[in-house]
């Protein structure tokens, strides 16, 4: 039971490292952006896992609901911010990818690097 309670953290670790590995090893820039999204979303999962309380509900007061156990609102707030940061990075990164394609005619990192070297 205790082990199952840690499963979320293991998935967090695995997703994080899938993202990281892809970031390092894949050359395609769009793929890198997708990997970055996976990488960041792993962290979202990590924080949200922390916020869960056994038998709790979403932290919203409801009229007449009586005594309620709420899950922790703080990590949720943090992750709301982090998601927004993530999409902002994604937008900027994709814009750079588009410009790179216009300038180099490719979105493969190694090909761009080769062109830079020859320049």
């Amino acid at each position: 039971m205790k082990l199952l309670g840690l499963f979320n953290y293991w998935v967090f670790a695995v997703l994080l490292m899938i993202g990281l590995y892809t970031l390092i090893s894949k050359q395609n820039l769009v793929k890198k952006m997708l990997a970055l999204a996976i990488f960041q979303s792993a962290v979202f999962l990590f924080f949200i896992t922390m916020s869960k309380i056994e038998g709790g509900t979403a932290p919203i007061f409801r009229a007449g609901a009586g005594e309620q156990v709420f899950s922790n609102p703080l990590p949720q707030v943090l992750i709301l911010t982090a998601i927004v940061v993530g999409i902002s990075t994604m937008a900027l990164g994709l814009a750079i990818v588009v410009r790179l394609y216009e300038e180099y005619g490719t979105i493969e990192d190694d090909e761009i690097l080769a062109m830079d070297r020859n320049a």
Partner: protein
Amino acid sequence: MTLSDHLPVLQVIVPLLAAPLVILLRNGFLAWLASLLTSLCALGLGSQLTATVLAHGPQHYHVGGWAPPFGISLSVDAFSALLVLLISGASCLALAGGRLSLRRDIDNRRAPMFYGAWLIAVAGLSGIAVAGDAFNVFVFMEISSLATYILIAGGRDRRALSAVFKYLIIGTIGATFYLIGVGFIYMMTGTLNFDDMAVRLEGVIETRPVVIAAGFITIGLALKAAIFPLHVWLPRAYTYAPNAVTVFIAACSTKVALYVLLRFNFAVFHGNLLGHSELFSAFVIPLALSGILIASLVAVYQTNLKKLLAFSSVAQVGYIALAAGLTSASGLLAAMLHMFNHALAKGSLFLCVAAFALVSGDTSLKRLQGIGRRMPWTMGAFVIAGLSLIGVPGTAGFISKWYLIVAALEFGQVGFLLVAAIVVSSLMAVAYLWHFVEGAYYGTPPAGESSPMEVSLPLRCLIWVAALSNIFFGLFPQLPLALARSGTSALLQGGLY
């Protein structure tokens, strides 16, 4: 509340709120002027804040009126004040000195966007420097990073784009690592406030997640601070960014990451993790040493002046990391001093480079042959700032190297080895700078470009003010010393907030 009580937050929101107004302007010159005025205003606020901190000790500010750890607090000690001065000062210098250079790089239509991003970068970096909350640091780190990516992408060379993409990826990885580390600490303490963390970590018995947190935070910030071998993004980003942008980011952006690194490691972990000092030393010192030596060596073989100086920056970051890695009061003192002094030297150097580029159009060493005879004033300033980078006595660079050596000697047996490495790398600094200076004075200029052609008088004056400040702070280092002393003791005593 009086205005002076609001100083910590004003430092951030003045440039932050000026940014949306600047992007609405339709004229590049107006946007530049507004940014410069805002930066000057930030510098004024920063000086006021520094004076207050030196006179009355650390300043605290509860944003929204909520007391920490529930609300977000801002905490400004002497170390933060030092950073704030660097950031606003570098921004003023780069904007004032980079007007012509920026006009060349950024077309008028896109200029308001560019200057908006500039102000957001200033605000973001200042926001990190004054933050007292770990997550707030993350938010402002992202603000400053995104803005910095934009600034670098403004470079005319297409390689700016590939450089900035790499920076974006690595910067995001760094920030995310930092966030993971904060998450682990939150998991074990339930708080995000630095001070509260330090207190509550004491009671944590199970330290495995905390060690992991320290690892993530240190590696994440080392990525952002370009500590060798995590520096791969830096040389190209500095090289292909617009020249004025390089002046700004070279002076302050890596230092802000180092600031957070030191803050976390010394104010939060230092007293609470068994063997943290040894681990931190064992991790940082070898990296810093190899960074100092290898990056200096690589710099010797560069053919582009900006890249040469960029590798020198990697080496200099190594010095700061090395000083911090000594985990002693004198080491921290040296680290803070070197942040200040290196910013002075590198800011001045890159400003000279921007001036060279205005005349020669390029920063490759080949194109810059004979530039010393064409631009004797700018070149003279370059040499002075270069001496400071080497650490010649009488310049600011010497002061911090001296403290670094003293701290290294206190470190025990390895100390002599460290001193030897510092000396060797200083000599390599002579070599790589001379590599350029010699050609600049005695080389043959490219055909048809031998007539003297200095930049405008105000720019020359500014360059000389920057260069002479290296001498001034070498002879009268009282201000940075006072800040570093007070910053060190605040950092080590903990319980600052």
